[in-house]
C-alpha cells in the first residue's frame, strides 16, 4: 500500500518535471517571437497558465469547503487548505509576471484595470482565508470558518470575469478560449500555451498531493502528542 502510493507520487513528480522541461524548451527555443509585442510576449506562457491554475485552485477550495461543511470530511478540509496555499502562490506569481510584462508594453507597472484589480482582490480574499485559519482558536473552528469564506470568496470569481465586460478595459482581450474562435495566435504558440497550461496543472497536482500528505502527518502527530500528554 505504502510503496504503491510512493510510486504514484514519484511517477507524478517525474511526469511534471519532464513536461515542465519540455515547456521551457518550447517557450525559450521553439516558439516564434511575437510580431508586435516582441520578446516580452514569452512571459505570457507563464502568466496565463498561472492564472488558470490559480483559479483552478480556488475552485478546488470551493469543492473542499462544500465537502467539509456537508460531510465533515477531513480530507476535504485538507484539500481546501492545501489548495488555498497553492492558489495564493500561483496568483502571487501571476500578478508578479503581469507586472513585469506591463512595464515594457504598457509603460507602467500596474494599472487599476478591472481584471488586474479583481485578481488582486481575489488574492486578498484568499490571504484572509489563510489568516482566518491561523487566527482561529482551534482547528475545527478554523476549518469551518475558512470553508464559509472559501464559498463566499468564490462568489467573487465570476465578478473577475464579468468585470471584463462591465467596465472598459486596457487588458488584452483573451485570444483563446470559448469567447474566440481560435484565431489570433500562431498554431505553435497555441500548442505551447496548451502544454504550458498542462505543465502548471501538473505542478498544482504535485504540490497538492505533497501538501495534503504533510497535513495528514502533521495532524496525526499532533493527535498523538496530545494523547501522550493527557
Amino acid at each position, binding site marked *: 500500500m505504502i510503496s504503491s502510493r510512493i510510486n504514484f507520487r514519484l511517477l507524478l513528480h517525474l511526469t511534471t518535471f519532464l513536461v515542465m522541461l519540455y515547456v521551457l524548451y518550447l517557450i525559450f527555443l521553439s516558439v516564434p517571437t511575437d510580431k508586435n509585442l516582441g520578446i516580452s510576449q514569452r512571459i505570457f506562457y507563464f502568466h496565463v497558465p498561472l492564472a488558470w491554475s490559480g483559479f483552478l485552485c480556488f475552485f478546488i477550495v470551493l469543492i473542499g469547503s462544500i465537502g467539509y*461543511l456537508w460531510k465533515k470530511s477531513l480530507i476535504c478540509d485538507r484539500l481546501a487548505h492545501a489548495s488555498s496555499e497553492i492558489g495564493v502562490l500561483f496568483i502571487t506569481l501571476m500578478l508578479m509576471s503581469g507586472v513585469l510584462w506591463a512595464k515594457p508594453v504598457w509603460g507602467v507597472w500596474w494599472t487599476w484595470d478591472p481584471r488586474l484589480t479583481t485578481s488582486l*482582490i481575489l488574492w*486578498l*480574499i484568499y*490571504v*484572509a482565508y489563510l*489568516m*482566518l485559519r491561523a*487566527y*482561529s*482558536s482551534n482547528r475545527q*473552528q478554523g476549518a*469551518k*470558518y475558512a470553508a*464559509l*469564506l472559501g*464559498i*463566499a*470568496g468564490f*462568489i*467573487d470569481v465570476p*465578478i473577475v470575469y464579468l468585470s471584463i465586460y*462591465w467596465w472598459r478595459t486596457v487588458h488584452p482581450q483573451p485570444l483563446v478560449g470559448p469567447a474566440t474562435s481560435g484565431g489570433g495566435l500562431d498554431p505553435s504558440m497555441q500548442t505551447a500555451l496548451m502544454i504550458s497550461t498542462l505543465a502548471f496543472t501538473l505542478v498544482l497536482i504535485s504540490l497538492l498531493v505533497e501538501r495534503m500528505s504533510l497535513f495528514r502527518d502533521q495532524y496525526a502527530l499532533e493527535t498523538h502528542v496530545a494523547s501522550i500528554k493527557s
Partner: protein
Amino acid sequence: MRTLLKDVKTMVWKDIVAEARNKEMVTSILTFAILILVIFNFALRLTPQIILELAPGILWITFIFSGLLGLTRLFVVEQENNTIHGLLLSPVSRENIYVSKAISTFLFMFVSEIIVIPLFSILFNVSLFNLLIFAVIILTTIGFASIGTFFSAIATNTKSREIMMPMLFVPIVVPIIIAAVISTGIVIQGGGWDDIYKWVQLIVVFDILSVVFSMLAFEQTLQE
C-alpha cells in the same frame, strides 16, 4: 412567517432599546466618522474645483471605516455582557437571530450616515441632498450590514478580531464600494437615474446574494 416577523421585531427592538440606553454603537461610529473627515481636510488640499471629484471617495471611505468600527463591536457587546448565551438559548432559529442583528446593524449604520451627510455638506461645501444619493446609500448600507454581520460573527470568535474583520470584510464588499463611489460621483456631477442604473443593479444583486448566503451560513458561525 408570523413567528419570524415577531421574533425579529422583538430582537431588533431589544437592540434599539439597548442602544438607546448606552448609545455605544451610533456614538462610536459617528465620532470616528467626524475624525476621518477632519483628517481628510488636513490630508488633502481641497479647493472648490477638486472637491466635486473627491467628495464621493471621502464620503465612502468615511462610511466604510466608521462602519467597520461598529461592525467589529457587534457581537463583542453581546459577549461582554454574556447575553450571547441568552440569545443562543432562546427558542429562536439562527436565521432569525441573523436577520434581526443585520437589521439593527443596518439601522445604526444608517442613522450615523444620516447624521454624517449634513456635516459633510457643511464641512466640504458639497450638497449631498439628493434622493438618488440616499437610495445608493441605503442599498449599499444594506450590503455592508448584511455581509458585515455575518463576518462579524466569525471575526468575534478569532484571536484578533480587529485585524480579521477588515481583512474579511473589505475585499468582499469591493464591488459595492466601487458601485457606490461611482454612482455617488455621477449624481454629484449632475447625472440622473439612467446613468447610475447599471451600478444600482450591481448593488442590488450583491445585497440579495449576501443576504441569502449569510442566512444559510450563519448557523455555522455561532459557537455553541
